[in-house]
């Protein structure tokens, strides 16, 4: 694989089976999340991207197999210890009515507090830093529900950053945002990743965003990982045809370097979302 470091990575899944009640989403999945890198998970709707992220973050208990964080079974570690190490931004997060950006961000400090400890200078500093990084300092006293979609998402990112975890898991952080907000948010994640070495895993829908921002791409299809590696190795016309059912041309991105995908036309709808299975010639 892409990893040159011999020691196992901090976050890895070992032959996990993921399921909701009776529905099995993915079986026998193994994956190593490279430390300090920006990993992006892509794949068609319903392929199990978010489920993998939920399993990696301890939200979903795996049917079999084990997720390891720092070599320990993530379900056998103390919840608060895991939370101090690993932060998650879920897909649809709704803030309680009336709470301010500052109040939302400060709730990210939960794993660092005990039942009787008071709000510390360290907590305060972490929240201020998170607000500064997300450029939300000016809006700190505004109610979250009065903000625009892009600002609201930044407020949630500030909450996760205040958590000061060294691993960030982001479930479709750019969905529902306009292109300017998408880019500025992805720039922020890329910067946090390169400046502070935070291991970042994001589920994204836009393949070109994945190509541009990811160090590694994980491609999922039908609950399996079909490719894992740097964009240039992974994003081939063959893979795009197989996984997404689109005929595409991959060119060199003239602005940012790396691969850039231009879709020509759809060959078929991926089976996981198609009402009936049909194979185009």
């Amino acid at each position, binding site marked *: 694989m892409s990893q040159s470091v011999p020691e196992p990575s901090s976050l890895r899944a070992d032959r996990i089976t993921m399921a909701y009640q009776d529905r099995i989403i993915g079986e026998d999945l193994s994956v190593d999340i490279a430390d300090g890198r920006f990993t992006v998970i892509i794949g068609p709707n319903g392929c199990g991207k978010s489920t993998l992220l939920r399993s990696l973050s*301890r*939200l979903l208990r795996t049917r079999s197999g084990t997720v390891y964080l720092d070599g320990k079974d993530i379900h056998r570690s*103390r*919840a608060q210890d895991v939370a101090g190490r690993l932060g998650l931004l879920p897909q649809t997060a709704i803030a*309680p*009515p009336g709470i301010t950006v500052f109040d939302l961000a400060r709730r990210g400090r*939960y*794993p660092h507090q005990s*039942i009787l400890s008071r709000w510390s200078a360290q907590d305060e500093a972490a929240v201020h830093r998170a607000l500064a990084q997300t450029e939300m300092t000016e809006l700190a006293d505004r109610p979250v529900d009065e903000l625009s979609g892009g600002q609201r998402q930044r407020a949630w990112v500030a*909450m996760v950053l205040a958590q000061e975890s060294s691993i960030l898991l982001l479930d479709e952080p750019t969905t529902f945002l306009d292109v300017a907000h998408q880019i500025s948010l992805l720039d922020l994640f890329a910067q946090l990743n390169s400046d502070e070495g935070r291991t970042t895993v994001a589920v994204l829908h836009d393949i070109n965003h994945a190509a541009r921002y990811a160090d590694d791409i994980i491609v999922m299809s039908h609950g399996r990982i079909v490719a894992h590696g740097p964009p240039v190795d992974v994003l081939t016309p063959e893979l795009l045809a197989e996984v997404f059912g689109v005929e595409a041309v991959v060119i060199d991105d003239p602005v940012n370097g790396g691969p850039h995908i231009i879709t020509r036309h759809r060959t078929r709808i991926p089976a996981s979302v198609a009402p009936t299975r049909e194979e185009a010639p």
Partner: protein
Amino acid sequence: MHDPVGATAHATGSRLVLALAGLTAGLVIAIALSLMVGTETVAPSRILAGLSGECDREATALLLHYRLPRTAIAIVVGIALGTAGALMQAYTRNPLADPGILGVNAGAVLGVTIAIATGVSLSVTTLAVPALIGAAFATVAVLLLASTGRGPATPIRMTLAGVALGAVLSGIATAMRLYDPSTFERHRSWAAGSVAGRQLDELTGIALLVLTGAVLALLLLRPLNAVALGDDVAASLGVNTRRTRTLTIIAVTLLVGAATAIAGPISFLGLMVPHICRLLAGNDHTRIVPLSMLVAPLVLVLADTIARVIIPLRETPVGIVTAFVGAPVLIWLVSGRRTNTQ
């Protein structure tokens, strides 16, 4: 450039201190009023004399056997219902929830009604047992109802189950009272919600239950603040959401069971008070719950004082006063734009 975050945080903090000071002063005044006002007005000097044991026998008797227990009960019941209401609103993520919405009130009332009808127990201390059993029964039944079918017991499913079960349990209790009116004659004011006619020694056990529930509530504040962000976020922050929920339900059961045993069902207090506190302090449970512990007894003591004089020479059960005051206040709160923002 000045620091806007620090400045406003400081402003909110000092506003809160001001509100706390004002409310504490208000509570002291309300307690003084409730000791003075009634069918016979007692002057402040006589109250002080009576409390310090000096021999104004008439005033001493009135105070120690009638007004003091009544005020003390109003304070304890107020703390219980205010805290329970704030917990329920946090638990269901619904700013208009109250203990009644999960059927806990109705369960406690039915428990007491059955105990009275069967003649099992008639003193307040022993009535706490059927009240708690009834409250716990309603809680467990709602949890079971809400978890049938697929998926976990979400707040919305619990609310639906609670409202439905509450209606059934209240119906049964009402039918039992109508079927056997003579037995329930002396409990008529209890059924409407009242803090009158009890003695101080009846309060001890109740106060201990309320204290337990209140301490539990204070320990749950930070997890509840995280749960308010959604179960996924709470879990990713390291909160054990299931344990938080279970402990919240236990606290509510203790508080409502105890309050109902001694005072009957007092409506609107648990709904109205946390709502007022949210307007004062913002949508933050670490502030709403403690503030509710101060505001609810203040409101109940005042309402009980009003209940004594609103119809001359007649006692109105305080539950009726809280309903009459609570309903318009609630409508005003909901209709105004004050609902969402702090």
